């Protein structure tokens, strides 16, 4: 066998292990700081706004579009069996259990996760992080922990909003496009959607918020080089966080289903 290929596989494996190792060391440091130091409340609220409030428009648009599309696609199948009154149930279940949290996680990763990586990356290459250290300010306390906690807390709120927008989108399609009875749409949701469907979605959203801020802050913090380095960190943060969110979504769904939360 070609030793070049073996060497390439070996190098890639070592690189992946190295990256994973530093990702978890970074997380360990962040968790230690979160437990042992006071939360920077001002920074926490700034990032609640940046990650959450500033994302409302895109969450509204994606949630609404997802609800409309889901209702349209469901109608294609359900109309063949004459069970259109269940479209509302499917839209609501789809939005609360899967689409709401996943779409929110991915969209916020694209918008806020990339901004986090770019901002911290720029701070790294312009020596602002070193400056914080020399001023006796713990960069993890000032930069990392407030973003992590803000992400974990704000994502469920955005997800509730996304779920609502999706359900409203489905309602608009069913009532105004298909001329279905609005009461049957709503009663279907009331009858079949349980609290645990929503709870499960919100737990997943919180985990996605954690993944998004963890990867974004890590990639920014590890930035090397100049503007190109910031670009690479930003891209890597979006790609890695998106992949991790999609993988975590499966395992979280299975786990929550197993323990009966979702």
């Amino acid at each position, binding site marked *: 066998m070609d030793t070049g290929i073996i060497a390439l596989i070996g190098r890639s494996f070592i690189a992946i292990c190295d990256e994973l190792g530093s990702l978890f060391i970074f997380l360990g440091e962040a968790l230690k700081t979160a437990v042992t130091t006071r939360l920077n409340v001002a920074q926490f609220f700034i990032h609640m706004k940046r990650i959450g409030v500033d994302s409302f428009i895109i969450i509204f648009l994606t949630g609404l579009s997802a609800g409309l599309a889901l209702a349209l696609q469901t109608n294609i199948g359900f109309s063949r069996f004459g069970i259109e009154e269940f479209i509302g149930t499917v839209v609501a279940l789809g939005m609360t259990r899967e689409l709401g949290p996943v779409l929110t996680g991915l969209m916020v990763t694209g918008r806020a996760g990339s901004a986090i990586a770019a901002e911290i990356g720029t701070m790294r290459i*312009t020596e*602002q992080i070193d400056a914080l250290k*020399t001023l006796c300010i713990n960069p993890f306390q000032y930069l990392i922990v407030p973003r992590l906690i803000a992400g974990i807390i704000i994502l469920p709120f955005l997800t509730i909003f996304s779920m609502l927008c999706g359900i409203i989108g489905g309602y608009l399609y069913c009532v105004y496009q298909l001329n279905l009875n609005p009461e049957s749409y709503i009663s279907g949701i009331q009858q079949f959607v349980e609290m645990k469907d929503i709870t499960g979605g919100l737990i997943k959203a919180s985990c996605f918020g954690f993944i998004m801020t963890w990867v974004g802050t890590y990639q920014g913090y590890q930035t090397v080089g100049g503007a190109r380095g910031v670009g690479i960190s930003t891209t890597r943060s979006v790609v890695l966080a998106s992949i991790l969110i999609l993988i975590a979504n499966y395992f979280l769904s299975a786990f929550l289903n197993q323990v009966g939360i979702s």
Partner: protein
Amino acid sequence: MIEIRNLRKTFDGVRWITDNLNINIPDGQMTCIIGRSGEGKSVFLKQILGLIKPTSGTILIDGVDVTKLNEQELQQEIFKKCGYVFQFAALLDSLNVLENVGITLLQRGEPMEKIKPIVEEKLSLVNLVPSEILSKYPSELSGGMRKRVGFARTLMTNPSIILYDEPTTGLDPITARVVHELMYKMQQQFHITSIVISHDVEIFKYVDNIALLYEGKIKFFGEAKTIWESDNPYIYQFIRGLADGPIQVEVAHQPEF
């Protein structure tokens, strides 16, 4: 006293940025480190403060070995008494001048009414008019002003040691002179031990000692007032900007004329 012994640093295992470097920085004096661009002067300076870990060697600041300290110990033992003036000031973009200079106190939860007069005092020390710039953001300041704001921020911790990373790079000669005089004034007023990295020969008028870094080692260390009479071949070549001498000029390719 800052004592550096057998300091070695490599990033790639091939090229040694500092190579068995030895130097003593006298207390209460200003020592200037000169050397070619890309020689590793900034890396050397950051190693002194523990911002970059050396590969081997010891750095003693008042008897404490910086190389043995973790992040928390560095904060307790080193950063409280050492200040660092960054090459491009490293002001936080998202904060205005008041918040940038007062950030240490802000993080301790001190009220703004208490912080503001202290910030104003430090800004006045660096010849800035507080009322004109307190609410400005770094992007609204000129290069010289940014450096002075960075300087004021360093003074907030009342350091006994200050490290300056090319404090006058990119400044016009008049502003550079203002910065040099400011450094000199701080030195005289507070007896701060200072290490300055600079390419500007004008700084020789203001510093006590000069050290030349070449190929990872200190090739010359002497008093600034006699520098122009020195017959050390390295310093002779460097301060006169001569092409011939022991210092090799790095040329990637021969230009065609």
